[in-house]
């Protein structure tokens, strides 16, 4: 019972903190670019504003258009419940392993793309087409990276994976290096950051994610934006907790939990800072350079598998 409660709290925390991470990255980025920038909690304000606005829906919109924000948000929220934020071994993590997690994202994306196409604008179709193309390359790379880990730890359950790594803290796996690099590349692509997509752009021809949600307004738009932030949050947490799991707690005592929360906050914010650095340093790619980028990710993850098979199994 304790576990279930903790899991719900943790999920709520993750959902609540997601806008802050997005704001944080933006703030750091602005600072790096010597701009004042909005404060890190600006996304909360934006969301609040959007929730308080009237919703305008195009006359041709179908039920898919209206239900997509709820569905996407729900699925992403469910994904949050699966990811170990501060504690492992929670009952919710057994609902889905990492493959199912990828499945959740795919489900969200499926409806996102459909929602983009629903009104029949060319931007929506364009965004959907690009999103699905990128995803169809990123997803296998992501899974291949996950497989690398899974083959080492003999599990695809996130909790089992992390606890295995915690139990064997100072083993250096060459395959993990490759997998980590590959998954970082994938995460950047999947969360729609530079150099794949620019969350800040509204230049039609360079948009991917934004193009799909152009027709949304009010609370629908808020849910969509929030879901995107959640995704960034989940990927960040996943990356830091998989590749540097130190600080995650196994026993659910309040001090330990607090400590774990602190550690993970620091780790995630650090990752956000790195992301901001990278986004500042890099320029957005042309769409047709993206396959090469993702191919690199794929190759890295494949190398991870191969190095696992060749170097680590005996």
């Amino acid at each position, binding site marked *: 019972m304790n576990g279930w409660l903790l899991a719900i709290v943790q999920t709520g925390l993750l959902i609540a903190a997601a806008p802050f991470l997005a704001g944080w990255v933006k703030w750091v980025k602005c600072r790096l670019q010597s701009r004042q920038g909005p404060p890190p909690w600006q996304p909360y304000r934006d969301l609040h504003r959007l*929730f*308080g*606005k009237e*919703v*305008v*829906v*195009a006359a041709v919109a*179908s*039920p898919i258009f209206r239900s997509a924000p*709820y*569905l996407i948000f*729900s*699925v992403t929220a*469910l994904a949050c419940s699966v990811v170990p934020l501060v504690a492992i071994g929670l009952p919710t993590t057994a*609902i*889905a392993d990492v*493959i*199912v997690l990828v*499945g*959740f994202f*795919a*489900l969200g994306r*499926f409806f996102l*793309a*459909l929602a983009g*196409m*629903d*009104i*029949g*604008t*060319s*931007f929506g179709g*364009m965004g*959907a*087409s690009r999103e*699905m*193309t990128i*995803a*169809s*390359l*990123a997803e*296998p790379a992501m*899974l*291949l990276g996950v*497989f690398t880990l*899974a*083959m080492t730890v003999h599990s*695809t359950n996130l909790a*089992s994976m992390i606890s295995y790594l915690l139990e064997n803290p100072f083993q250096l796996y060459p395959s993990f290096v490759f997998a980590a690099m590959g998954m970082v590349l994938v995460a950047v692509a999947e969360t729609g950051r530079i150099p794949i997509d620019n969350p800040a752009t509204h230049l*039609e021809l360079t948009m991917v994610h934004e193009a799909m949600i*152009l*027709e949304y307004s009010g*609370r629908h738009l808020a*849910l969509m934006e929030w879901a995107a932030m959640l995704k960034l949050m989940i990927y960040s947490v996943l990356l830091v907790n998989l590749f540097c799991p130190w600080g995650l707690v196994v026993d659910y005592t309040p001090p330990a939990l607090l400590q774990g929360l602190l550690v993970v906050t620091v780790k995630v914010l650090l990752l956000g800072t790195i992301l901001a650095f990278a986004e500042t340093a890099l320029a957005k790619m042309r769409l*047709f350079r993206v396959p090469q980028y993702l191919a690199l990710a*794929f190759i890295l*993850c*494949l190398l991870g598998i191969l190095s696992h*098979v060749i170097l680590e*199994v005996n």
Partner: protein
Amino acid sequence: MPLNFALLAVLAAIASGLLPLACAKSNRAIKLLAFPLLGLAGLCGIIGGGLALLSGTSHRLILPVGLPWLHTHLLLDPLSGFFMVLVGLVTLVTAVYGPAYVREYERGPQPLLPLTVFTGLFIVGMDLVLLAADAFTFMIGWELMSVSAYLLVTYQHQHERNRSAAFIYLLMSHIGALLILLGYGVLAGFADSFDFARMAAAQLPLGWGSAAFLLALVGFGLKAGLVPLHVWLPEAHPAAPSHVSALMSGVMLKVAVYGFIRFTFDLLGNPHWSWGLIVLFIGSISAILGVLYALMQHDLKRLLAYHSVENIGIIYIGLGLSLIFAGTGHPALAALGLIAALYHCLNHALFKSLLFFGAGVILQQSREHDLEKMGGLIRRMPVTAGCFLVGCISISALPPFNGFVSEWLTFQAALQSSVLSNNILGALIPVAAAVLALTGALAAACFVKVFGVCFLGLPRSERAAAACETTLGPRLGQIFLALLCLLFGVLPTWTVAQLENIARLFFSSGMPEATAHGWLWLTPVSSEVASYGAPLVLLGIALAWLLTWLWLHPRRRRFPVRIGPAWDCGFGPLNARMQYTATAFTMPIRRIFRPVWPITEEHQAPSAENPGGRYRLRVGDWAWLKIYQPIGRLLLGSARRLAMIQGGNIRAYLAYSFFTLLFLLLVVSL
């Protein structure tokens, strides 16, 4: 008892096929006779097969027909029972869906009768294949199935396209049948009997075993549609009436898979791991090429047909894994692979027939088969759209629907490759898994295209704008299948537990851990390794949705939704031609995987007489261009040269006779 039901199913199907012959004049009578009997056949099949599957028992019967020294052996074991259920399910839905659907043909130039007759016989053929326990009966059922399907494909034979599709289908099917026969011949050579029980008991040396295996792989692969033996599939499926396409794609391909499983796992036994590797390789190729080719199609049924190639590929990946594990002595993992494959058979049968039924409704209501001319159908046919959406989600392997479960199981099987001592295999299997992942992602892209272009947006043609929802029967059929898709997605644990009965037939153990944690949790290897709580996923999504909805409810009252024109970045009024087309949607993928397809593009810049400009894209099939056409040319060329012997000159003819005589005399006197 189960066998009685199965036999009743066969009889009902026969009756459904033949009884309408007695009242050929009245379409009404034909429909009243054929479809209820078909439904009965389906129902009996489900009950009989289901009983056999659930109880895990085998039932035998010998009928005094067939060859004088080889009477007809029938066998209903969990494996055939399972496939019997598949056939029964789709047949049942066909019986519900059919009467309204065939109304279209009553006005057409063809009489209705052949359609119902051959549908009945088609089911008979499939059931017979499943029940057969000797090679002769098997082949009779097999070819009955092929020929009936051929006659169904040619049902609308006024179109030349349909005829050539049917021809290619029957030709390839016939060649496949001959190879299968050859495979049985090899087995029978060692067993000295065509009885399956004796064949299964016979021990083959590896060389002969491999030969038989390859024959079966190609023979059944021709029917199942493995790349590069798939070329008939995208031709035949669009040609057949939609409920027949559903049967063909949903079940007939599965019957081929059944044949392969029966042959390889049961009759051959003791698989060698290299067989598994071959199957894995071919399955991966089929999966990825199937989906890539599907992406480029814009004929709806053709697209679905290519997806069948993809899904058969996925099934074969599972089978390949199972063979590899079985060949290296890991029965529990082999069971996992087999169960994954079987589960995918079930799922594919459900969602592919659902999609074909949906496609049939679209075709019937909009009279369009070209995606580029559809659009906005969701507003006029919401039920069909909803069910089609379920099909799309399922086939794209998205949780919590059924397609995801089987792919997940396949992934789990693939990830166990680290138990293999052979490192090369250990490295290759994850690559196959990555291919599977790529396939799944591309399938999702493809079905976003299908659903988006077909149902969403604005109608792209007058006909699409005029389409309306279908009648009760087809709606019920689709809803039923959609519910099953959800059900088998949410209750995988129960399903896997039943499928274990099949795995126990071939492997010493089932999957002891898989269902050990109650119906909520599916843990194929152990709960530490992987777990999936499908009901909880559904519950979680629903809960999250409900919470969000409740949370936003006050605001909804304060700010009701305002309906307005589309914003579209302020570009002004929308029209249908501004939308992304199916061709445009897949353009990035086309660029990325360019060498995969033989593509011809025609551009025509806008000019004075043609202000719109013109762009045309044709996507062929390399297998057709590089394999089948050369073979055809070779054959016709050799026929042309051979025809010289029939040159018309009688003196030449006499000279043949003369020299034959001299030659033979010389031969015997040497």
